[in-house]
């Protein structure tokens, strides 16, 4: 069954041109030409991926993304817009977008990004060897529900937090380098800086470590990457 892409684009010429190209690549494409229709389609049809313009009649692409994320949709969203400022890119990603491309664009690059996003999505959907539930140090993480129960509370995890934790847990005991994280979690577009990974690791420690400053499960190996252990182990001595 072909993967279904929802194309949210109000410029008819661009929408038709993209549809033609994506269908030639074997995708099934639907078009929504304004923000409200886009929300309705995303929530009702649950497409495999959304290509979302920002400047849309009535409701902007940013608002669409914000609302569908708020309603619990995890569909991969690729922003495709003429807005090319850093502020707009950051806003798009912060609101839950998974990738951001500016117009004019190369069709081949767009198709590769779409394929990479779908690949990451299917990797994430695969059941890891420990199942979809990970238990460690009094924490219980449900990768499918994006939820975790820690010793004192219940936490709703973001998609990126879940993907990173799943990647670390899959390679338990092994050092996972930054490049691998960028590749598996962010994929084709290496937009985020190393600082973004650090922040994500800090957030995971804050959720799951009893003392985030002395982590027992998510360790940093300076210059090499990160290592996860489900049984508590003392922090690694700094190494250069």
């Amino acid at each position, binding site marked *: 069954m072909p993967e279904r892409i929802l194309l949210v684009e109000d410029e008819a*010429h661009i929408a038709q*041109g993209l549809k*033609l190209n994506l269908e030639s690549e074997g995708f099934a494409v639907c078009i929504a030409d304004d923000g409200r229709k886009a929300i309705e389609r995303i929530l009702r049809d649950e497409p495999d991926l959304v290509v979302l313009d920002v400047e849309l009649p*009535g409701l*902007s692409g940013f608002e669409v993304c914000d609302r569908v994320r708020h309603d619990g949709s995890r569909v991969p969203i690729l922003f495709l817009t003429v*807005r090319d400022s850093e502020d707009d890119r950051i806003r798009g990603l912060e609101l839950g977008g998974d990738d951001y491309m500016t117009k*004019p664009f190369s069709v081949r690059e767009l198709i590769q990004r779409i394929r990479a996003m779908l690949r990451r999505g299917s990797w994430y959907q695969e059941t890891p060897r420990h199942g979809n539930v990970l238990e460690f140090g009094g924490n219980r993480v449900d990768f499918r529900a994006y939820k975790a129960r820690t010793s004192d509370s219940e936490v709703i995890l973001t998609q990126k937090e879940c993907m990173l934790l799943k990647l670390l847990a899959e390679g338990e005991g092994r050092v996972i380098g930054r490049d691998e994280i960028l590749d598996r979690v962010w994929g084709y577009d290496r937009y985020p800086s190393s600082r973004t990974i650090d922040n994500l690791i800090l957030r995971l420690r804050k959720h799951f470590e009893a003392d985030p400053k002395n982590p027992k499960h998510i360790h940093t190996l300076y210059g090499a990457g990160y290592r996860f252990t489900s049984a508590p182990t003392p922090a690694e001595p700094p190494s250069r």
Partner: protein
Amino acid sequence: MQYRRSFRHHFVIFVLLSFIALAQLSWWVIFQLNEGSRVTKLQHRIWTEQIRVASEQAGLWSERPRHELETWLQRVFPDLTLEEASGKIIVSAAAEKRLRRLAGGRVRMYVSEGAFFIFLLLTGIGYMYWVLRREILYEQQQSSFLSATSHELKTPITSLRLHLDTLIDRDLPKAQALDVLSTMRRDLDRLTDQIDRQLQAQAFVFGKRKLSLQPTDLTDETQFILKEISGRYNLKDLQLRTHLEPDVTVMADPERWQILVRNLLENAIKYSPGGGVLQVSLTRAGRLAQLHVSDEGVGFSQVECERIFERFYRIESEETRRTHGTGLGLYLVREIARSFGGSVRASSEGKGKGAAFIVEIPLAEEKRLA
């Protein structure tokens, strides 16, 4: 959003500075009034002391004639005098009156100066607020314009590139390839239009375009644009009704008149997504040629009525707009009408209730007589 934040930031600083300036002024007025009261009290203390010294002298001179004491008092303590009935030394009525006048004068001076300062300060504050607001609005419009221009230029370029890539990468059947090519031609037209409009606006802003007014038959020129527009746009939902009086001649530049009419018509078409009646009439009204363009489209509010002719002004937000444009079309209409010695005005019953534009240009005969 960013501008709202920036305006709030400037406004807080501005209010703070105004508050400090007003507080400073109030403190100055209070200080001066207190100082006045202190001077009055001091004068009374001096008089009391003078009365004590003069009374001691009067005791020593009790045997001397009264006029000697009076002469001495006038020479040494001119503010004091001998009370007629009791013979006691008191402050003269004239000195008391002078002191009251001085104190009153000071209060009047401080109050009038204070009021003047407050007036100056408030005028300054008002002016600064007006300048700040204008600056921010202009900045906001410019940014919207940049964003709109970027959208208006990049969209056809994106479409052109997309279709070019498609033609290169895909092996399309001939009919489909021709469709793609015709889409590309429409994108190219859109891009050309946009660039033309930008250049026309720039020519007005920098006054580089030489104006050569000549007797122009507006009927012919308007008819020409009406034909062009009908051929170019798909007016299936719009019912076009025209009434053009023959031989309406004004002193104008025919090319500019065409731009004016084209912009008004495109504006009406753009803002009539639901169709309706588009009426265009050209008539003589007294000494004026009057072009009337009205639609049954989205309309605008009373507040927007004046602003729609401002350069870069757009009714919609750039993120959620339903129409193309950069906020130059109606600006050009106004500037062109003015360059012919005429004017333009807009009216609307409100949002969703259509809009009407009336352009008035003095007729050629009237101009020559004048």
